[in-house]
Structure formats: structure tokens, C-alpha cells
């Protein structure tokens, strides 16, 4: 659905506004000074922690690996998506595995893991309700935290009937129970479980997964093999740092001090434990992260803990929704991640599609200065355009502007012309059958304020001669 179609779909507009608005309210309540008086200090602390970890990342990666091995697990370093799928395919082949249960992971979305596995005849099943719906509908998540935010119960009813062959069911509770029944069988039959990770704890070799449904617990506990796929920027130094990080993540995402379930996991089941996986792997994914690390100006993009607060608060996201961004990461954070991961010129318009209102930076629990990074990206894109002689028209326009601004008589003449043309707010332009495209589009939604009858310069002159 294009931006235009999204804007014109009043039901979808209402759905996005309601959902993001509710998440904003939950967050605001959870961080209120009565409940969390030291919230701003916590943010600064989290920022400092992530900064320290990212700036010494090699050390924490090695410490993490050492501790995973000590607990009987393995760390698999992968430089790109292909290495991840190669590893999983090889393991699947060696163990005779076919059915995979997966809990929600943006990292696995990022590398199109499901598509890659399906291509090789494996069966990955998403188990988070929203992700399951999205997978059945062959779509990408609409929101980092609420992947099926854009779908109605009626669309889900159609989808379940079509894909699962169940009688049509429009009651949300019943739809949820259908998913529970179908997925419960998958959990019990699955050969391998794949989770993401919200945090990787260096001093414990631990993978931390946060969720509300219980599907991540099942994914990491029911099958014989557990694989966690995580970007290497997910590291934090110590388990004790979880108090601050979990507190910020849950509150910023959904307003929960702690989500229903937080799993802290390391290694396969130990001697004497009743159940749990027999094998435990952590995939540490690069896929563009080391390149991002090279730039001290924009490195802070890697502090992100994927809470989604910047999406919920963004006036652009709230209008255009999640599918009009070019990559799986949408909203303000997507605007700074996509150009750095997919290449500056892949979607050169992206960092410009922002009013720089700054609310994203204000709500970010780890204080990423998103507007500053956006400006940096804009200047890099403009430089790149100049270098490759693109954007000639724009440059010409600015040259003409600079030329005119240095000549007062032109400025004044232009002002007079403008006042005449825009006397009624430019309405006539939008009514012209052949008005210039972008101008017409702009004026079709709004009117310019009518200019003053007498310009400032005229008034000034009149006063002086008095």
C-alpha cells in the first residue's frame, strides 16, 4: 500500500493512530516521575553503558564467547545473511531437522531468514501471534513491537480460513486460541527453535529474551536445539546491567516495568536439570555492523534496543505507517539504519522525509540523537549527489536563490509578484488544470497564508519618510 493509499485509508489511519497513541500513553504512565523518579538518569546510564560496550565491542564479543563455551554452548560468527543460512542448513542436515519454531526476531527479518530456509525446503514457523499472522499473509512486520498492527480481526478471519482451513472466526479471543492450538503442535514437534536476543550478556554468556506470550520460552525450551540469532551490537557487559536495560526496554516499548516473561539463558541444559535444549548456539551477526562502527559520528545508531518508542511518537510514522519505509526497520530508527546498512544512495530520499521535530531523540531510552544522525546522512547524500553530478535542478535553484538574495531590487520585485499571485492563498494555482505537479499536490491539501497587503519594506520606507 503506497503512502498515498495509506493516507486515504481512514480505517488504517485510525488503527495506526490508536495503536501508537495507546503505546505512547502506556510509556508516559510508566516513566512518570511518581513511578520512576530517576528515569532521566537511567537513560543517561544506559547511553553510557551502550557507548562503552560498542567502543570496546571486540573485547565483549570475546568475553561473551568464552562464557558461552564455558556453559557448553557455541558462538557462530557470521559476516552476512548467507553465512547464517549456511550454518542453519548444515546443522539441519546433520541433525535431520526439518521443522523450526521461531520467536519474533527483527534480526532474522533483517536477513530474510525465513525465505532463505523455505528456499531450501525447511519449514520455519513464526510463533509470536503477530508474526504468525504476518508470515501467513506473506508480509513484513508493520512495527518493531507490534508486527500486525495494521490488520483487522476481519482480515485475520479471512487469512485463517484461507491458510488454516478453519471455519471463519471473527472473535479475537477465539482467533488467538486457534493460533494457540495450531502452534502448540508445532512447538511439540519442532526439531530446532530459533529466537532473537534483546541483550547478550558478556560476563555470563547469556542470551536475554523479552516477551509477553510465552512463545520465546517454548521456542528456547521445547526443541532439542536452541539457536539465538543476534546482531553483535546487542552486547552489554554484565548481568547486573539488566536491571537498568530491562527497565527501560519494557517501559519504553509497552509501558511494562517487566514484560510477562524475561528469559536469561546460557548453554544447553546442565547435568541434573530436567528439561531444556541439548544444544545451544548463538549466531553473532555482522551484516553491515562493522562498517557502521567505522564512523564515530554515526556509531551511536548501534545503541538501539528496538523498543519502538520512536516509531510510536513519530508524526511521519503515524501518518504513513510501517510498510512505506524501504526496509524492515521503519520509523526514525529505520531512517538512520537503512541508509547505513543498505547504502547511502539506495533510498536517498529517506533521511529527508523528516521534519526534524526531535521527538524521537527525546523518547529514546538510550538517548540516540536521531535528528543529528539524519542531518549527517543528509549532508553525506548531498555531497554524494554533487560528486556524481546528480540533482542539477536543485543546485540550479539554490544558485538562482543565492543570486537573487544578494540583489535587493529582485527580492522586492519578487515579493510584490508573490503578494499578487498569492493574494487568496494560492487557491487559483490548485484550480489550474495544468498547475505544476508538486505545487498542485501541496496546495490541494492546504492554503498558503495570504501575504500582508503592504510589505515590511514598504511600511519601513513610509515610516522613514514621515
Amino acid at each position: 500500500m503506497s503512502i498515498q493509499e495509506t493516507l486515504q485509508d481512514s480505517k488504517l489511519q485510525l488503527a495506526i493512530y490508536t495503536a501508537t497513541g495507546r503505546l505512547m500513553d502506556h510509556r508516559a504512565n510508566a516513566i512518570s516521575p511518581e513511578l520512576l523518579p530517576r528515569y532521566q538518569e537511567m537513560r543517561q546510564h544506559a547511553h553510557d553503558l551502550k557507548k562503552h560496550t560498542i567502543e570496546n565491542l571486540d573485547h565483549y564479543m570475546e568475553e561473551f564467547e568464552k562464557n558461552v563455551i564455558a556453559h557448553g554452548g557455541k558462538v557462530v560468527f557470521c559476516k552476512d545473511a548467507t553465512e547464517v543460512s549456511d550454518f542453519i542448513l548444515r546443522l539441519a542436515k546433520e541433525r535431520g531437522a526439518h521443522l523450526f519454531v521461531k520467536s519474533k526476531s527483527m534480526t532474522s527479518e533483517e536477513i530474510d531468514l525465513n525465505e532463505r530456509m523455505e528456499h531450501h525446503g525447511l519449514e520455519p514457523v513464526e510463533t509470536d501471534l503477530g508474526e504468525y499472522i504476518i508470515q501467513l499473509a506473506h508480509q513484513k512486520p508493520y512495527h518493531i513491537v507490534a508486527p500486525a498492527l495494521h490488520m483487522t480481526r476481519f482480515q485475520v478471519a479471512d487469512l485463517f480460513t484461507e491458510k488454516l482451513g478453519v471455519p471463519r472466526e471473527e472473535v479475537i479471543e477465539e482467533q488467538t486460541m486457534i493460533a494457540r492450538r495450531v502452534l502448540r503442535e508445532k512447538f511439540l514437534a519442532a526439531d530446532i527453535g530459533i529466537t532473537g536476543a534483546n541483550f547478550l550478556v558478556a560476563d555470563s554468556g547469556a542470551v536475554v529474551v523479552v516477551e509477553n506470550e510465552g512463545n520465546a520460552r517454548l521456542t528456547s525450551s521445547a526443541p532439542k536445539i536452541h539457536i539465538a540469532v543476534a546482531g553483535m551490537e546487542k552486547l552489554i557487559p554484565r548481568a547486573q546491567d539488566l536491571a537498568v536495560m530491562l527497565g527501560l526496554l519494557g517501559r519504553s516499548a509497552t509501558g511494562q516495568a517487566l514484560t510477562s516473561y524475561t528469559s536469561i539463558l546460557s548453554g544447553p541444559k546442565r547435568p541434573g536439570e530436567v528439561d531444556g535444549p541439548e544444544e545451544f548456539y548463538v549466531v553473532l551477526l555482522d551484516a553491515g555492523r562493522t562498517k557502521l562502527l567505522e564512523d564515530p559520528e554515526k556509531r551511536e545508531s548501534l545503541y538501539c534496543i528496538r523498543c519502538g518508542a520512536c516509531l510510536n511518537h513519530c508524526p511521519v510514522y503515524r501518518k504513513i505507517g510501517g510498510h512505506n519505509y524501504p526496509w524492515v526497520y521503519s520509523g526514525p530508527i529505520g531512517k538512520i539504519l537503512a541508509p547505513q546498512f543498505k547504502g547511502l544512495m539506495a533510498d536517498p530520499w529517506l533521511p529527508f522525509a523528516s521534519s526534524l521535530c526531535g521527538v524521537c531523540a527525546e523518547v529514546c531510552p538510550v538517548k540516540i540523537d536521531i535528528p543529528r544522525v539524519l542531518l549527517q546522512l543528509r549532508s553525506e547524500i548531498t555531497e554524494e549527489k554533487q560528486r556524481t553530478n546528480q540533482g542539477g535542478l536543485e543546485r540550479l535553484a539554490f544558485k538562482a536563490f543565492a543570486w537573487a538574495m544578494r540583489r535587493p531590487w529582485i527580492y522586492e520585485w519578487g515579493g510584490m509578484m508573490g503578494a499578487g499571485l498569492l493574494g487568496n492563498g494560492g487557491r487559483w494555482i490548485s484550480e489550474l488544470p495544468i498547475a505544476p505537479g508538486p505545487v498542485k499536490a501541496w496546495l490541494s491539501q492546504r492554503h498558503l497564508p495570504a501575504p500582508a497587503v503592504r510589505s515590511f519594506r514598504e511600511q519601513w520606507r513610509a515610516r522613514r519618510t514621515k
Partner: protein
Amino acid sequence: MSREFILGRVRSALDRKTGQVVPPPPPVWLLDTDWTLEEKLASFKEKLERLAGVVHMADSPENAREIVASLITGKTAVVSNATLLADLGITRLPGVTVAGQDSEQSRKLCAECSFGITGAAFALAQTGTLVMRANSQEARLVSLLPPLHVAVVRKEQLIVDLDELLTKIPKPVEDSSSMVLITGPSRTGDIEQILVRGVHGPGVVHVVFL
């Protein structure tokens, strides 16, 4: 595979040498909150009830067993291997089977029974949270597969919050592969943000304090 390659790239991006000393990380931030037992109990109850969990106060071991017995009347239950539950006689209640040490058998029981009955390593008053550690006494699936979860917790195990937990246990997975924090029932809002409980984990959580 790509280990050396990636670590090398990280080091060169950060301008660091192999094994270069790391400056100390920001100091650990853990708050020390001092609450009385009454305050902790009141807070736990309020927080868990807000999430539709149920809190019971037992005044004696017999009372604790009676509370559990009345909850599971007429239903099947799988009970973890926690000594507390055996000591209380919960393992001998009608309809109850002990999970045991066999992984397959325990899993089968958990998939079939209506109730899962466990102890807990700790309970966090600030959030109404149960802290579960996997070991020979507690299997992971007992608090997960059955649609209803009952936890029996001694009042001494009630601590203030996550900060106190991580102060007591700085390395949560040092001697267990899994520490899980359970805060209320399983829930989702993925369809039209309508709250539904019990999507994958238990939809009902009872905590009996003894």
C-alpha cells in the same frame, strides 16, 4: 568461520589492538530499597492482581495444601520436583503427578495436565514477578505448558525488585541454564490491541504465599 575476520574488522573500525585493555565500564547501577515484609506482600499482591493474577495467603502448611487442593479440584496437575511441594503434601493430592527427572515423561505430563504447580526461587514485590531457575527440582515446562500455573512461595523468598535479585545473584546463569522472570499470565494484544490471556503460556497464575 568468520570469527577472526569479524573481530579484526571490529578492531580496525574501533582502532583497537588485540587484547588491548578496556577502560572500566560505567559502575553498576542497582538501587537498594528497604521494604518491610508487609510492604512487600502488599505490593506483590497489588501488582499481580493488576495483571489478573491471584494471590493467596496461607497461614500454615496445611492451609497452603488446602488452598492448592481447592484450586485443582477435579482437574489434573503436574507438580515440579521441589522439596517444598512434597513437604507440604501437595504431591499426594488427588489428580496430581510429579514431573520427575525424565525429560520426555515430564514434557508429556506438562502437555496433558491442566495445572502446573511449582515453587519459585524468588518473588519480586515491586512487579509481582516469580523468578524460576531450571534445575533438578524445577523443570522449565511445568510453569509453561499447562494452561494454569500455581506457584507456592515462602515469604522469605519475597524480595523487593530486580535490583535486589541481581545484587543477590550477580551471575544468574552460572549454575543453571535458565532463569526466567514470570510477571503475570501469558498475554497478547497482537490483533487490534485487544488483550487476550493465555496465548502460549498459562492464562491464569496463582501465587500461594506461605
